[in-house]
């Protein structure tokens, strides 16, 4: 299976590659429109600041490509947030695949939201065989609101989308590649979709 991780210069993609390696899959890195288009599965990672990440996508015209992809796509962390409508971070217009906005946690809680938190109301095949209230590892200061495409929720200050799905597009706020066995199960589920 051809699993391609979109390499647009945003964040620690090495860990995602290693996580697939542990599942026996050699995921490759690419920023080529053609290669991404031809992949069986696409991973859209991202760590860092939203407006800068969007600029980097635009430079390689990936902002136009990603929303048109027909195969299964998994956005991770900032990748998921960029698939939303809009982010408060750097007042960034998103790719609009998910019909929710991204907002910042208030200072009523410690920001970033960092560590292991439970996920609830699991609804998609992406989360198959992962028990309700499993712990996943997250690091983020911005969150995607709850919407009709929410397939898992989590709570920190308020309830937010831990995972989203719209047709072939999936997104997770947490880092499955760093979330021990349940995270590995999620990546395996993504391969099995």
């Amino acid at each position, binding site marked *: 299976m051809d699993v391609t991780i979109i390499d647009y210069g945003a964040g620690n993609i*090495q860990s995602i590659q290693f996580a697939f390696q542990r599942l026996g899959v050699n995921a490759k890195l690419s920023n080529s429109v053609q290669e991404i288009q031809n992949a069986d599965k696409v991973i859209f990672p991202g760590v860092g*600041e939203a407006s800068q990440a969007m600029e980097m996508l635009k430079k390689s015209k990936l902002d136009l490509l990603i929303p048109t992809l027909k195969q299964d796509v998994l956005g991770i962390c900032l990748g998921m947030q960029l698939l939303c409508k809009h982010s408060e971070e750097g007042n960034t217009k998103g790719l609009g695949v998910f019909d929710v906005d991204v907002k910042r946690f208030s200072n009523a809680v410690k920001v*970033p939201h960092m*560590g292991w938190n439970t996920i609830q109301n699991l609804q998609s095949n992406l989360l198959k065989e992962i028990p309700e209230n499993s712990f996943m*590892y997250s690091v983020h200061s911005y969150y995607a609101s709850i919407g009709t495409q929410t397939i898992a929720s989590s709570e920190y200050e308020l309830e937010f989308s831990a995972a989203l799905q719209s047709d072939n597009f999936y997104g997770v706020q947490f*880092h499955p590649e*760093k979330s021990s066995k349940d995270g590995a199960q999620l990546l395996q589920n993504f391969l099995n979709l």
Partner: protein
Amino acid sequence: MLAKRIIPCLDIKNGRTVKGVNFLNLRDAGDPVALAKQYAENGADELVFLDISATLESRSTTIDMVRKVAEQIDIPFTVGGGVSTVEGVETLLKSGADKVGVNSAAIKRPELINELSKAFGNQCIVVAIDAKKVDGTWLVHLAGGTIPTELDLFEWAKEVETRGAGEILFTSMNNDGVKTGFANEALAQLSETVNIPIIASGGAGTIQHFVDVFKNGKADAGLAASVFHFGEIAINDLKQELQSNNINIRL
């Protein structure tokens, strides 16, 4: 609900763990990858590797180690020790470290925190602070706690937060190695001072000390070395006990 974190800390020199590790079922106690794996399996939430290598050559061995750990371990880990440049941090992150700890270099040149946070995001910048209570004032110390500075712990903590630190790892030198509990009063005050997560370090001797650091010290994570390395506290027992004390923990 967000869980409190338990973090074993490993000292690394020339790519090997040092400072005596005594683990059952580990043929080679000096291998950081084997140790990390064992900790991850036993329920550690995160790991910290502190590189105490002195030479550039031994640092490159550490980079190899970071890569091997990232390949095999599916929980987050921080690498600290001697980190002083944007390039150095980039190498560590590209090798698979999730976060990087900076200490002395940030005291000598505080702008480094801004630069790192801008380049990589604040989520991966942990500022480590060693402080000692001297005549009622918590003074920040340099170079592994050997050199005192004029900096006040709480003022410095506020400054590193403003400059873009994502997390603070506070080691109380008064408590470190004594095994009589964490510096809970200072920790609680630190949690009031800043709005980023605090990792408590220095003083762990018993399971009760961890209960106290979360309840009274309001810490977000508890870090320790020898009590874990020598099997005095098994992480799973610790977590069971924390849970029975109504502390939210990942089991």
